[in-house]
C-alpha cells in the first residue's frame, strides 16, 4: 500500500486524469445531469447555450449536457461489461490452450486465428445480424468479437512461463495444477492483458458508438453518443452542436484511453493487479514477455 501511495507522486496525472474524469462523470451521472436526458420540451427545441441549458437543446428539446453525461454512463457500462467478459473468456481459453497443450491447443489456436483474421466490427455486425439488434445482443456480439486477442496473449504468456525453472521447482515440490496456474502463471497473464485492455477500452467505446450509429446498439430513449451523432446529422448545417458535442466527447474518451494504454505499456504507471507486487526482476521479465507477446499478437 505504501508502495502504491509513494508511486502516486510519480504518476503522469495529465494522462490519468481525463480517464478518471470520464469514469467519475459516468458513475455520478444520475446526480450530475441537470435534467432527465430523455425529457422532451417542445417549447425549447434547438436552442443554443444558455443558463438553463449550458450546452443547448436538441430537436426534441432535450438538454444536451444531460444527454452527453448520460451517454458517458451508457458507454462506460457497456464498455466495462464487454471488456470484462472478453477478458475472462480470452484469459480462460488462452491459458487453458497454453497449459493443456497438444491437440486442444491446436484447435483453440485455429479458432483464435479465425477470429483474429476478420476485423472485429465485421464479426460483431455478422453476429448482430444473426441475433437481431438490441443492447444485449450488442454486448454479446462485441464480446465474441473482442476475446480472441486476449486469448492469444494469454496463451503466449502461459507457454513462456511454463518453461521457467521455478514452475519445474513447484511441480517437484508437489504443487497441483491449480496452485501452479493461479499462483505462478495467472499474475503474469493478468499483468499483460490488463495493460492491453486499458488501451482497448477506447477502441471499444468507439465500436459501441459505431454500432449505435448504425442503429444496431442502444435503443432510445437511452442517450448514447453514436446515436446522438446520427440523429444530429440532419441538423449539421444549422445546429452543428448536435453533432460536434457527442463527437468531441467520443474523441476525448478514445484519445484518453489510448494515452493511458500507452503509458501503461511504457510503464509510466505501475501495473494494476498482481503486477504491483512483483519483484523488480520479475517485473522486468514480465515487461519483456509483454513486449514479445504484443508483437506476436499483432495480426
Amino acid at each position, binding site marked *: 500500500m505504501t508502495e502504491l501511495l509513494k508511486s502516486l507522486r510519480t504518476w503522469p496525472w495529465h494522462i490519468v486524469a481525463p480517464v478518471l474524469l470520464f469514469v467519475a462523470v459516468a458513475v455520478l451521472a444520475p446526480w450530475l445531469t441537470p435534467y432527465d436526458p430523455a425529457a422532451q420540451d417542445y417549447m425549447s427545441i434547438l436552442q443554443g447555450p444558455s443558463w438553463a441549458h449550458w450546452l443547448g437543446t436538441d*430537436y426534441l428539446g432535450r438538454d444536451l449536457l444531460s444527454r452527453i453525461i448520460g451517454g458517458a454512463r451508457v458507454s462506460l457500462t457497456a464498455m466495462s461489461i464487454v471488456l470484462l467478459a472478453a477478458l475472462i473468456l480470452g484469459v480462460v481459453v488462452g491459458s487453458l490452450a497454453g497449459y493443456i497443450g497438444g491437440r486442444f491447443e491446436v484447435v483453440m489456436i485455429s479458432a483464435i486465428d479465425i477470429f483474429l483474421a476478420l476485423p472485429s466490427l465485421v464479426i460483431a455486425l455478422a453476429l448482430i445480424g444473426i441475433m*437481431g*439488434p438490441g443492447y444485449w445482443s450488442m454486448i454479446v456480439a462485441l464480446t465474441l468479437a473482442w476475446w480472441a486477442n486476449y486469448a492469444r496473449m494469454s496463451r503466449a504468456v502461459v507457454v513462456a512461463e511454463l518453461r521457467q525453472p521455478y514452475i519445474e521447482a513447484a511441480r517437484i515440490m508437489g504443487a497441483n495444477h491449480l496452485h501452479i496456474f493461479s499462483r505462478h502463471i495467472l499474475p503474469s497473464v493478468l499483468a499483460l492483458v490488463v495493460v492491453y485492455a486499458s488501451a482497448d477500452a477506447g477502441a471499444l467505446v468507439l465500436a459501441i458508438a459505431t454500432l449505435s450509429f448504425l*442503429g444496431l446498439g442502444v*435503443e*432510445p*430513449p437511452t442517450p448514447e453518443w453514436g446515436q446522438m451523432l446520427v*440523429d444530429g446529422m440532419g441538423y*449539421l448545417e*444549422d445546429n452543428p452542436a448536435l453533432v460536434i458535442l457527442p463527437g468531441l466527447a467520443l474523441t476525448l474518451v478514445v484519445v484518453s484511453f489510448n494515452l493511458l494504454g500507452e503509458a501503461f505499456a511504457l510503464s509510466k504507471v505501475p501495473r494494476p493487479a498482481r503486477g504491483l507486487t512483483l519483484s523488480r526482476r520479475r517485473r522486468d521479465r514480465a515487461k519483456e514477455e509483454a513486449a514479445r507477446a504484443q508483437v506476436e499478437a499483432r495480426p
Partner: protein
Amino acid sequence: MTEFSRRSFMLATASALAAAGIPFQVLGAGHLTLKIAILVEAGNIDLLQNISGLNTYTLVFDPLIRYGAGGKLEPALAESWNVSDDGLTLRFKLREGVTFSDGTPFNAEAAKWNLERWMGKSDFSWIGVSDAMESISTDGATGLTIKLKQAVPAALLEFTIVRPVRFLSPKAVDADGNQSAPVGTGPWVITENDNSHTVLVRNDAYWGAKPPFERIELLVVPDELARANGLRAGDLDIIGGDWVSPLSPRRARALESEGGAKIFADTGTTTMLLGFSPRADAVVADKAVREAVYASIDRAAMAKVLFEGFADPIANLFPPTIPLSGKPLPVPTRDVAAAKAALTAGGWEEAGGSWTKNGAPLTLSFLVSEESLPGSRRIAEMIQAMLAETGIKAEISSVDNATMHERRPAFDYDLTFFTTYGAPYDPHGTLGNMFLSNVDSGPDGKIYASPELDPIVMAALAAPDGPEREAAMQAIFDWLDANRALCPLVAAQRLWAYGSNVKTFVLPPTDYDMPFEGIELNG
C-alpha cells in the same frame, strides 16, 4: 522539345477559354434549360424493368389516361373511353395523328402491341387489369377494346400509372423484344443519359401543348445539403418531391428564411399512421390500449416540431386530396386523462406510473426502421415520450429494411409506422393491399385486417362508381374509426423548392410526375 513563348502560351490559353465559353453563349441565347436535381441516376428507363425512378418516364412516355389534379381523369393518348355496365369491357378511342419521337405512328396496333407486352403476364399480376385480362382487340386505327375476365374496380385508374402501362415505340426494341431505347410520344426526348446527368430536349412533334423552354437537365445530386447549395448557387432550378430529390422540412425552412429560393408546399396525398398489430394475442388486440395510444399522441406538436409545420395533423386514413377519402374526422387533441380513463375502463390497473392487467405489464414493442422510412426514429422517440406520460411503455426496436420486411408481414410488433400509397394509387391501392386478411400483402404487411372488416372492404372495392361506392367507402372508414383500428398521425406536405430562374412553378399532379408542365422560366 518545343518551347512555348509566353505570348503563344497566353494566346493558346485565351483561345481555349473562349472555346470553352462558346456552348454556354449559345445556350444563353434563347435556349432555356430547366435544371432539376434527381436523387439517383435515371437508369435505362425501361418500361418493363423496375430499375429507374418513375418520374423520368413521365417526361418521355404518355399514358392513355392522365391522373389530373384531385384525381380527375383526363384524356391523354385516349381521347375518350367507356366501361361497360358489367365492368368487363373497356373501350378506348385513341388520339389521331400522334407519332412516337422516332416518327413511328401511334395507332391501335401500336397500343395493342404495347399492352400485350405486360397484360396477362405473371410479373404484372399486381395490376388488376393485367391479372383479369381476357383479350385485347383493335377496331380500325383508333379503336381499342380490352375484355376482362372479372370486373376491376379501379381499372381506369390503373391506366394512369407510370410503369409498365405507358407506350413505347414498337421500333425501339431489339430482336428479343427488349426495350432498346426510351422512345415515347411524350413532350421530351432523351439525348444524353449517364450516371451523372440526363439531358432531354423538347419533342417538337408532341401532340399536346409544347413547353415554353427547350431543354431539361436532370442532374444527379445524392446529398440533400449539396442540392440546397446547388439551388442557392443557381446551378439547380428545382429540388424536392418525394421521389425526385426529397427536401426535408428543416431544409425547406432554412431555404425559406434566407429568401433566395422559394418553397412550394401543398397538402400531401399520403398519410403517416401508427398501425396496431392484427395478431390476436398482441397487447394492442385490447381496444382499450388502442384507445389510450390514440388519445396520448399530440399530432399538432409532431407536425410543428418534427415537420416544421410542413405536415397536417390527421385523423382520417386518407388526406382530403385523395378521391373518396370520406368525411373528415376531427383531429383529436392530446388527452392523457382520457387515455388513462380508457385503460381503467378496459380493466387495466395503474400502480407507480405503469399499468398492468392480470399481472401482465402494459409494454408495447415498437418496430421502427430508419432505413425503410427516413426520419421515423425521431418520430418514434417523440411518440415513446408521449406514451410514457400516460404510463404506456413502448420499447423501440430499430431494425434494418430486411428485418422490417420479415417482421411486418409476421405481425411481429405491437406498433409500427405505415404510410399510405398516395396518388394515383389510392384509395384502392392501400385498401386492397393492406386491409384484406386473405390478400398477400408482401413485405409491406397489413395496416389492419380482421374477418369482420374483409366483407366491408370487398364491398367497397367492387361497388360501382358514384354515390354507391362513396357510401361503401365511408362504411370502411366508419368501421376503422369505431374500432380504433388505426392511429393516423400526420399527412406530410408535398415539398418543393425553386430558384430565381423559375418564374412560375406548378406542382405536378402526383409526386410520381416530374415537374415541368406550366412551369415558366425567366428568359
